[in-house]
């Protein structure tokens, strides 16, 4: 009995410590993000506390067509195109790598995910020299292609992982029941691995939307993305408009994550707790 209660006490201390640790980790991660939000409502023009007063002027500034909204549209356009491409190509690659075993399969996977491992500055330099040669510098096509290559590894990794848990017997069953290969993919494989594809697509989108280094090298002012513009802003005129834009982006990203989580829960419910 005594032994039992001391163990419970130990467990209670461990539990408290664990909670404190987790709480502090979350605090350190989230506090810096939250701390800057009030500055976006500042009536002053410096990134500092205390704020002289409350104002929405910086939100007004970032909602002007130039330069903020224009670069936002650029970012969205490039990110959406890159996401669609990366998701399609990445899913096909992951599927192919799952159903067929061939010599050099490991090498192919390594090459596909190399943009994740190679320092981004190296990738950007490589892309810069290559694009200069083929005339893709300062074009949307070039930036979309580079961002596709950066986003595809996330799709390949998440879809490969999802396919690990996918019962290939279902594909056999479907074809024995008379479904052509494409019909099988559309009706059986795709719906079952869709959560993995969606997760990969989200990562690909965020990768492109956040990306600044490749954009620095490849984009001319006509293709300036939002991060590229913010980077320029940090250097040229540091004012709370950047913080206002950041706050909007935090809101936007949080919304995406919430929607994803809701979708995931819905799928889980439909699939009967799988």
């Amino acid at each position, binding site marked *: 009995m005594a032994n039992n209660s001391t163990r419970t006490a130990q467990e209670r201390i461990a539990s408290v410590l664990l909670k404190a640790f987790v709480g502090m980790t979350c605090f350190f991660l989230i506090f810096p993000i939250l701390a800057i939000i009030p500055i976006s409502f500042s009536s002053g023009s410096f990134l500092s506390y205390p704020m002289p007063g409350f104002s929405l002027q910086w939100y007004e500034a970032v909602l002007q067509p130039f330069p903020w909204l224009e670069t936002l549209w650029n970012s969205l356009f490039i990110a959406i195109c890159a996401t669609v491409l990366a998701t399609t190509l990445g899913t096909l690659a992951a599927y192919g790598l799952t159903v067929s075993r061939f010599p050099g399969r490991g090498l192919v996977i390594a090459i596909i995910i190399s943009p994740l491992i190679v320092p981004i500055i190296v990738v950007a330099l490589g892309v810069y020299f290559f694009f200069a040669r083929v005339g893709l510098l300062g074009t949307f096509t070039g930036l979309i292609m580079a961002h596709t290559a950066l986003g595809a590894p996330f799709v390949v990794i998440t879809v490969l992982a999802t396919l690990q848990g996918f019962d290939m017997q279902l594909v*056999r069953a479907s074809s*024995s029941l008379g479904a052509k290969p494409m019909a099988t993919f559309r*009706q059986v494989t795709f719906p079952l691995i869709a959560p993995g594809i969606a997760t990969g697509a989200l990562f690909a989108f965020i990768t492109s939307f956040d990306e600044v280094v490749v954009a620095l090298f490849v984009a001319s002012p006509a293709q300036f993305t939002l991060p590229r513009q913010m980077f320029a802003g940090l250097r040229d005129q540091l004012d709370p408009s950047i913080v206002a834009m950041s706050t909007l982006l935090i809101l936007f990203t949080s919304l995406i994550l919430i929607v994803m989580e809701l979708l995931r829960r819905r799928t889980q419910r439909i*699939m*009967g707790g799988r």
Partner: protein
Amino acid sequence: MRDLADTAPIVQFRGIDKTYDGDVNILEKLDLDIQQGEFVTLLGPSGSGKSTLLMILAGFEEVTGGEVLLNGERLNNVPPHKRNMGVVFQSYALFPHMSVRQNVAYPLKQRGVPKAEIDARAEKALDMIHMKEFGERMPTQLSGGQQQRVALARAIVYQPEVILMDEPLGALDKKLREKMQIEIKHLHEQLGTTIVFVTHDQSEALTMSDRIAVFNDGKILQIGPPSEIYEAPNCSFVANFIGETNNFSGQVTAQSGDACTLRMANGAEISGQNILGARVGDAACMAVRPEHVKLDLEQVCSHALKAKVTGVIYHGDHIRYELDVPGARDVTARSNAHMQDALPEGQEVYIHWDMDKGRVLDPLSGAEGAA
């Protein structure tokens, strides 16, 4: 059992070879004809090639050599979705994101059947397997037995020419398995469709089949109706794989007509039918089913063997005697006597059997001898 002799075979395997690495043969020069409407079971231990043959017929595996014919037409390069066969898998392979009804409707949808007809036929198929009220459930909400019924309905709803079943009852418990065996048998009688059934369970094969093909090491050792396979095995492997068998190993010392005499290691001689045409001097093994072994307290005939009862096991409808017989191992006998008439343990007895119940076959290989 129906008369199948005069109809053309629906499925023909001709000289099938299958190897994955060019070294080990999964199937070797295999021939098999399956008749229209027949229930054929491919029976064998795991790794004997029976499932591979089924997967070749379904179109999931390619042959290394030989050809597969369906209604006389070559199937070799026809993809699975054009073969019009129903496959039932051991893992059920139901689509987890579709309801029971959608699963059953799936093959009809692929064939462009009109919506109203799909509904009617899916309903009828669900009715046949007593799952009508489960149409809206998701597969994960069903028990294993129910899932396998749905898989069955999905495989019969489009009236395929042949239904292939790959150990479909392997994942079910014994009681449910026996119930499903009867149901599948009834379904076969109702539909009249050809069924090719793969199992490693010999009692399942005996219960369900019109014919059993016994596989070992990529070859069919014997094919025939269950009674023939059980009562007239053509080799020691079949005799030992199907049902229980007592093995008496020895050397042929005399041979006359259909019969021959075997001298066992301890010098005792026994006689039986010479199935494989063994000649004097050949090593051989005689197979005798436990139910054919007779026990007597006195030596009633010259070729009776001396034995001692070492175990008496009561099975309700019969009694099993474990016997110590000099020169043979693990001999058992089955008796329908009542328990009160049972022989006591330690009793000295003489065992013998009718001449035609002892089948002289090939000598046991090491593995079977040890088993």
